[in-house]
């Protein structure tokens, strides 16, 4: 049954984005918000707003009971979780369904399956989708390690099973180094995480991050091509593009087909993204994980395909089949998104909340700015620093870069520091212009260019 009233259980720019898609479909919107977000743009644009708790996310946007109660109280028949917060929490999806409401996303079971790294890897292998060669789960013994090393070769990553977010990772270049590091790693993991379990994985040098957008209605699955998201700082994406220009058409076809196979194998329902490491030299891709939600960088896909991904999610959740066939999804031109964060690039990206004194939003052909900002808005310090996403589209990548620079020069966010100067400097960099980068490239670039960022007279850099 089509959704009539949607509770938006998120905040910021994605709440604004979801509300827009819903209203275009004639769906009434209820914006759930914390005390600190009572004057947010998402609340102002919604048909109705409902408070779900105090400022800390743990008491509001992560409060399952409060959100479900708010949905029932306001007569919502569906809940959109956005990204982050509870978007990939199977217990939340289940609680929404148990309350007789529709969760805009896959089933709790699918979220749980794909959220478990080992289960997701197994599902990928069963669907014939390549994964990074390595140990199947934990290393049981040194002998088991030998067998795995024969498969992975060197260099190899030694990871703490209980680690995450890049912590507890070591790289070994030969067997001697492996023997030494594996003991160190086990001791350290035991001390840091109370669990000395390790697993090993082939180290892919200069890997790129490439991901495929898929849409499924539980029966059919289509892809909306890929995004290139290698420009990252501390494993957070800062700049995303579509398509990935490094892919030859044949490789693109294989990658997207692999993503569809895996999504179809789990009867995927909704919008999802399959993330891959891409070894450019070998033209090989390896599945790493699936995100069972909409992603921050979804607009670049919308720009090159013309598909409204949020509208698709809402229609699928309302019981409709996919509105597009695979052959109807075009791939046209090139799109780039840059994240405008309230951080000072001149001061090691120190968060910089404040009051927006003067906001000038870029416009003109091929420019989109998804934001939570308005003039006079006091940016709360309690949530992440994403203020908006500047997205540009043009017929090809060089034109998109020129348009990005033009649009960044038009953007003014007085009263706070933003990451706009970083993006201006990146757009001018020859390596970026040649699309020659990998997931660790930006960290090195930032070390080499720190002084340049301090001097860059960005649009928001004057006090």
């Amino acid at each position: 049954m089509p959704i009539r009233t949607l509770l938006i259980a998120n905040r910021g720019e994605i709440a604004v984005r979801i509300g827009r898609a819903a209203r275009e479909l004639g769906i009434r919107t209820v914006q759930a918000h914390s005390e600190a977000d009572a004057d947010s743009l998402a609340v102002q644009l919604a048909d109705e707003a409902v408070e779900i708790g105090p400022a800390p996310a743990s008491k509001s946007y992560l409060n399952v009971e409060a959100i479900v109660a708010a949905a029932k109280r306001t007569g919502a028949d569906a809940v959109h979780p956005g990204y982050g917060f509870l978007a990939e929490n199977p217990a939340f999806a289940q609680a929404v369904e148990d309350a007789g409401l529709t969760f805009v996303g896959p089933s709790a079971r699918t979220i749980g399956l794909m959220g478990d790294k080992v289960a997701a890897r197994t599902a990928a292998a069963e669907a014939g989708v390549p994964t990074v060669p390595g140990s199947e789960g934990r290393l049981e013994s040194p002998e088991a390690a030998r067998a795995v090393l024969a498969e992975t070769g060197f260099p190899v990553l030694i990871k703490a099973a209980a680690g995450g977010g890049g912590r507890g990772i070591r790289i070994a270049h030969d067997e001697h180094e492996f023997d030494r590091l594996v003991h160190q790693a086990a001791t350290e993991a035991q001390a840091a995480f109370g669990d000395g379990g390790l697993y090993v994985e082939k180290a892919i040098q200069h890997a790129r991050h490439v991901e495929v957008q898929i849409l499924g209605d539980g029966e059919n699955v289509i892809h909306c091509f890929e995004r290139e998201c290698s420009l990252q700082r501390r494993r957070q994406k800062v700049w995303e593009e579509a398509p990935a220009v490094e892919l030859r058409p044949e490789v693109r076809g294989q990658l997207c087909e692999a993503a569809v196979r895996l999504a179809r194998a789990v009867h995927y329902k909704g919008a999802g993204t399959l993330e891959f490491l891409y070894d450019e030299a070998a033209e090989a891709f390896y599945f790493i994980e699936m995100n069972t939600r909409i992603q921050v960088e979804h607009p670049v896909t919308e720009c090159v395909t013309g598909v409204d991904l949020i509208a698709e999610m809402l229609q699928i959740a309302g019981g409709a089949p996919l509105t597009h066939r695979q052959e109807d999804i075009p791939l046209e031109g090139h799109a780039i998104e840059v994240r405008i964060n309230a951080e000072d690039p001149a001061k090691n990206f120190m968060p910089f909340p404040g009051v927006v004194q003067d906001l000038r939003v870029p416009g003109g052909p091929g420019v989109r700015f998804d934001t939570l900002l308005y003039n006079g808005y006091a940016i709360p310090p309690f949530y992440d620093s994403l203020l908006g996403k500047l997205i540009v589209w043009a017929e090809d990548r060089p034109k998109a870069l020129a348009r990005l620079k033009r649009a960044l020069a038009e953007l003014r966010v007085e009263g706070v520091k933003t990451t706009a100067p970083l993006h201006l400097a990146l757009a001018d960099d020859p390596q970026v212009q040649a699309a020659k980068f990998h997931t660790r490239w930006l960290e090195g670039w930032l070390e080499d260019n720190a002084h340049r960022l301090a001097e860059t007279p960005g649009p928001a850099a004057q006090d």
Partner: protein
Amino acid sequence: MASQIVSPLPGTFYRRPAPDQPPFKEVGDTVAKGEVIGLVEVMKSFHEVTSDAEGKIAEFLVENEGPVQAGQPLVSVE
């Protein structure tokens, strides 16, 4: 003479380094200049609050996990 330690940033004030660890300081503890008395979380990143005063902690003016503004007094020191 009483003095105050103020928050350098707006955000959420934490008295403990981690939820399962004891507070950095309790009322009655002595504090030296440069010592960490708490954390302020701003936009999901954590910043240490160091004391610019020395003496004995008389009172915490903001509760653990309470919202704070930049420049808001967190602790009074005598």
